[in-house]
C-alpha cells in the first residue's frame, strides 16, 4: 500500500511541477490588457444567444444574478456577451403603478482612452412588454423586454457591444405622477454602476473575456489541461477547457472501487474547490499567484474531479496584472489507472480480505470450541455430582484439546471424589457393622446371663441404643444400595394409574392421621420399574407425611401433560401446613441434606429419602422438583415428579 501511495505522491508531485513549469513558460507570452485591470462589472461569456423572454435561465452561466446598486430598491443584475451583443438582465422589486424611466449609459471604445464615445439610451415604457429603443441615426437600437411579476420585475435587453463594450450603466428613475399631469423627473432609485449621468460621471467598466489572451494561450498542451487567466482582482478573463478524451471512461466504471482504493491507500480528498461557474476566483493557489508567488495545490472542480492546479503570476514590470492558471485532472496520472497497479491493488485487497475472512473464521471456530467446552464443563457434573457425559473435543491436538483433556481428567477426579464420598457412608456402615454386632451379641449374651433387677434397665437402654445405631447404619448404606438397584433395574411398560391407585389406598390405610385426597387420571403408562416407582412414591409421601401436622390434608395427583411437545405424566404430592426452608429447593434432593430441625421420633433422618427419590426419578429420565404452593390460602409444599409418558398413551 505504501508503495502505491509513494508512487501516487511522486506522480502527483511530478504533475504539479510539470504544470507549474508549463505555467511559468506560458506566462511570459500572456499579457492582460490594461482594460482588463480596471473592470468592475463582469460580463459572462454566453455559449449561445439567449431568448429575449425576461428569464435568465437560458443564459446557462451557472451563477445567479448578483445584487448590486444602492438606494431603496433591491436590484439583481447580470451581464453577458455573445457575438456582438451585450445582454442585460435586471431583476428589481416591482414599481407597480409608478412610471419609470429606464436609462442605459454606454461607453464604446475609442482611439484612445480619452476618446471614448458615450451614448445614452432612455425609455419610459407605458406598460410591461417588449420594447425597442431606437437611437440616433448611427447607433444600433436596443431590444428588450419588461415583464412584471407579483414579486419581481424583470428586464432583459440586448445592447450593441460596439456601443457598450467598455463601460455601462443602467438606471431606473421613478417618475412620480401628480394629479396635474406635470411630469417632474426625480432620481429615485438605484442605478447600476453609478447613478444617472447628471450626478455621477463614469459608468462601470466592464470585465470582458479577452480573446487576445485566448489566442496566446491556445497552443498545443497535454490533454486535459484547463487554462484560465484571471485579472489582478481574480476575475476570470480567459478560460480554455482542455479536451479530456478517454479519461471519463475510466472514471465511470470504477468510481466506487476508486473511492475504496483511495481510502485504502490513505488518499484524502481535497477540501478546496474551484467552481468553474464563478466569475471570480478567490481560492488558493490563485490568491497566492496574485500576490506574486507561483503556487500549486489540489482542488476539486465543479464536476467533482480532483485536479492539480498550478497558478503563476502575470507581471507587467513589477506590477501583477493577473495570474495564469493551469489545471489537470489527477485521474490522468492516478496510478490506479495503471492496469498493473490496479490489478495489484485488486489482488492485495482480495488477498487481505480473504486472509481476514480466514482469520475471522478461525477465531470463530476457536471461540465456538471454547464456548462448547465451557458449556460442557459447566454441565458435566449433574445435580447428584455425577459425571454426566464426556467433554467434547478431547481428540483435538491443539491447546484446546489439551484443555479439554485436562478438564476431563479434572472432572473425572471430581467425579471419583464424589463417588468416594457417596460410598463413604456405605463403607462406614459396613465397617461399623462388625463392632455393632459385637455389642449386639454381647448384650444378647448378657441378657441370657443372670442380670440383677438393677442391671435390667441398663441393659434395656443399651439395647435400644444399639437398635437405633442399626437403623442409622441401614439408612446410611441404603443410598448406595439404592443406586445399585437403580442401575440394575429392569424396565417395562407400567400402568401408572393402577400403581398409583393401589398405592394411594395403601397410604390411606397406613397414614390414618392425615386426610387424603387423590386425583388420578386413567390410562397413564410409563416405561419404568414398578418397584422403583413405588419406592420413589414411598419416599416422597413419607417426606410429605412427616412435614404435615396431623389431620392436615395430603393430596396425590396424576395428570397427563405435554411438556414442550413431549407427553409426560405429572405426579404431584402436596402437603399442607408447612413450607419449604429458605434456600435452593434443589438442595433438598441431595444426599445428607435434611430440613428437619430436631429428631423427635427416634428414627434417623439423613436426607436419603428425597435423594433416593431424585435418583429414581433421574433413572426414569424424569424431573423432580419441590415448590411452595398456596391452595385456598393454605400454604403447602408440592413435590412434582415429571416422567416421560409411554408413547402408546
Amino acid at each position, binding site marked *: 500500500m505504501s508503495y502505491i501511495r509513494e508512487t501516487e505522491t511522486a506522480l502527483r508531485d511530478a504533475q504539479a511541477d510539470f504544470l507549474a513549469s508549463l505555467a511559468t513558460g506560458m506566462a511570459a507570452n500572456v499579457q492582460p490588457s490594461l482594460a482588463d485591470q480596471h473592470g468592475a462589472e463582469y460580463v459572462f461569456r454566453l455559449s449561445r444567444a439567449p431568448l429575449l423572454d425576461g428569464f435568465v435561465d437560458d443564459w446557462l452561466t451557472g451563477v445567479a444574478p448578483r445584487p448590486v446598486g444602492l438606494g431603496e430598491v433591491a436590484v439583481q443584475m447580470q451581464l453577458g456577451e455573445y457575438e456582438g451583443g451585450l445582454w442585460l438582465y435586471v431583476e428589481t422589486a416591482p414599481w407597480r403603478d409608478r412610471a419609470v424611466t429606464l436609462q442605459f449609459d454606454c461607453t464604446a471604445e475609442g482611439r484612445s482612452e480619452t476618446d471614448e464615445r458615450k451614448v445614452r439610451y432612455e425609455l419610459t415604457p407605458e406598460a410591461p412588454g417588449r420594447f425597442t429603443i431606437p437611437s440616433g441615426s448611427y447607433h444600433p437600437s436596443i431590444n428588450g423586454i419588461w415583464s412584471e411579476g407579483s414579486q419581481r420585475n424583470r428586464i432583459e435587453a440586448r445592447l450593441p457591444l460596439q456601443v457598450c463594450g467598455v463601460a455601462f450603466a443602467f438606471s431606473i428613475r421613478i417618475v412620480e405622477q401628480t394629479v396635474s399631469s406635470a411630469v417632474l423627473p426625480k432620481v429615485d432609485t438605484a442605478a447600476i454602476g453609478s447613478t444617472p449621468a447628471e450626478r455621477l460621471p463614469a459608468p462601470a467598466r466592464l470585465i470582458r473575456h479577452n480573446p487576445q489572451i485566448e489566442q496566446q494561450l491556445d497552443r498545443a498542451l497535454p490533454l486535459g489541461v484547463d487554462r484560465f487567466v484571471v485579472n489582478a482582482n481574480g476575475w476570470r478573463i480567459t478560460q480554455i477547457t482542455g479536451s479530456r478524451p478517454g479519461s471519463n471512461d475510466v472514471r465511470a466504471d470504477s468510481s466506487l472501487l476508486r473511492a475504496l482504493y483511495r481510502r485504502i491507500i490513505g488518499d484524502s480528498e481535497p477540501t478546496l474547490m474551484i467552481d468553474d461557474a464563478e466569475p471570480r476566483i478567490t481560492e488558493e493557489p490563485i490568491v497566492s499567484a496574485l500576490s506574486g508567488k507561483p503556487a500549486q495545490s489540489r482542488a476539486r472542480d465543479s464536476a467533482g474531479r480532483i485536479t492539480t492546479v498550478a497558478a503563476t503570476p502575470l507581471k507587467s514590470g513589477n506590477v501583477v496584472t493577473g495570474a495564469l492558471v493551469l489545471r489537470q485532472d489527477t485521474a490522468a496520472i492516478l496510478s490506479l489507472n495503471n492496469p498493473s497497479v490496479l490489478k495489484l491493488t485488486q489482488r492485495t485487497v482480495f488477498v487481505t480480505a480473504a486472509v481476514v475472512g480466514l482469520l475471522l473464521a478461525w477465531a470463530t471456530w476457536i471461540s465456538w470450541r471454547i464456548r462448547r467446552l465451557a458449556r460442557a464443563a459447566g454441565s458435566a457434573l449433574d445435580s447428584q455430582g455425577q459425571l454426566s457425559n464426556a467433554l467434547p473435543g478431547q481428540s483435538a491436538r491443539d491447546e484446546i484439546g489439551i484443555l479439554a483433556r485436562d478438564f476431563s481428567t479434572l472432572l473425572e477426579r471430581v467425579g471419583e471424589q464424589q463417588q468416594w464420598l457417596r460410598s463413604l457412608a456405605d463403607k462406614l456402615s*459396613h*465397617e461399623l*457393622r*462388625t*463392632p*455393632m*454386632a*459385637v455389642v*449386639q*451379641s*454381647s448384650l*444378647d*449374651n448378657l441378657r*441370657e446371663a443372670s442380670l440383677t433387677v438393677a442391671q435390667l434397665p441398663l441393659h434395656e437402654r443399651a439395647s435400644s441404643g444399639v437398635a437405633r445405631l*442399626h437403623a442409622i*447404619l*441401614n439408612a446410611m*448404606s*441404603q443410598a448406595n*444400595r*439404592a443406586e*445399585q*438397584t437403580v442401575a*440394575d433395574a429392569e424396565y417395562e411398560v407400567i400402568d401408572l394409574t*393402577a*400403581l398409583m391407585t*393401589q*398405592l*394411594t*389406598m*395403601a*397410604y390411606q390405610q*397406613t397414614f390414618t392421621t392425615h386426610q387424603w385426597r387423590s386425583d388420578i387420571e386413567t390410562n397413564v403408562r410409563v416405561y419404568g420399574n*414398578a*418397584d422403583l416407582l*413405588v*419406592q420413589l*412414591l*414411598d419416599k416422597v409421601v413419607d417426606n410429605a407425611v412427616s412435614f404435615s401436622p396431623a389431620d392436615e390434608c395430603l393430596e396425590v395427583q396424576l395428570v397427563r401433560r405435554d411438556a414442550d411437545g413431549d407427553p409426560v405424566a405429572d405426579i404431584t404430592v402436596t402437603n399442607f401446613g408447612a413450607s419449604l426452608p429458605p434456600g435452593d429447593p434443589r438442595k433438598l434432593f441431595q444426599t445428607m441434606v435434611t430440613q428437619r430441625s430436631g429428631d423427635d421420633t427416634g428414627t434417623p433422618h439423613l436426607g436419603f429419602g428425597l435423594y433416593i427419590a431424585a435418583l429414581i426419578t433421574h433413572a426414569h429420565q424424569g424431573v423432580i422438583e419441590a415448590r411452595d404452593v398456596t391452595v385456598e390460602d393454605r400454604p403447602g409444599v408440592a413435590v412434582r415428579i415429571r416422567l416421560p409418558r409411554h408413547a402408546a398413551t
Partner: protein
Amino acid sequence: MAQNLRTITIVEDDLALGANYREAFEREGYAVTLHASREAALSAMANGLPDLVIIDVNLGSDVEGGFELCRSLRSQSDTLPIIFLTARDSEFDAISGLRLGADDYLTKDITLPHLLARVAALFRRQQVLQSQHEQTPSKLQRGALTIDENSFSVDWNAQRVDLTLTEYWLVYALARHPGHVKNRQQLMDAANTVLDDNTITSHIKRIRKKFVALDADFDEIETVYGMGYRWRAG
C-alpha cells in the same frame, strides 16, 4: 436340643464377636469350634466336618476368604449346612454366596435369638431330609405348589424348587393364606430375619425367577403396590 451335641464351626476373624456367638451356641448345647482364618478352619476340618458351618465372608485381609472356604467345603460335602454371616449387605454378595451353595445368607444385624432360631431350623431341615422316609410328611398343598413343612422343601408341579431357608419362609408365609396381602414387616418376621425393604423385594424377585425357571407361566406371587405381596388365590 442339648442332648444332640451337634458341632458347629464358626469362622470369624473378629474374635470378640466369635466368642459371643460361641457362648450363645454353647449355651444352647452345641459344641462350637472357632477359627479366625480360612487356613486354620480348613486344616481343622480336614479331620472331620462339623454338623454346621457359619462363615464370615470377609476374613481379615482375606477379603473373599469366606467364599473360598464355602467352595472348598461344598466340594467335600453336598449336605453340610453352611450359613454366611457377614457385615456386607449388598445383593451382589448375597447372590454370590447363595450361588456357591450356602444354605443361608445373614447379615450381622441379626440378633442372637434370631440366629439361634435359624440354626435350629436348618438343623431341623437337615434332620428331616436325612430321615425323610421315616416321617409322616406334613404337607401344604396350594394348586401346583406343595410345601413340606418338615423338610422345608417346596415343589411346583412335583418338581423341587431349590429355595434357601429365607426364601422358603417367605413362600411359606405367602402361600399359607392365599389372597392375603403380607407386608414387608410380616414377611421379615416370617423369615426370622431383619431385612430392609429392598432385600425383601430382591428375595421375592429371586423366588419368582426360581419358579419361572420351572414354569414359564408362573405368576402366583402378586405385588400389591404399597402393601406387600400375596399368593394368588384360587
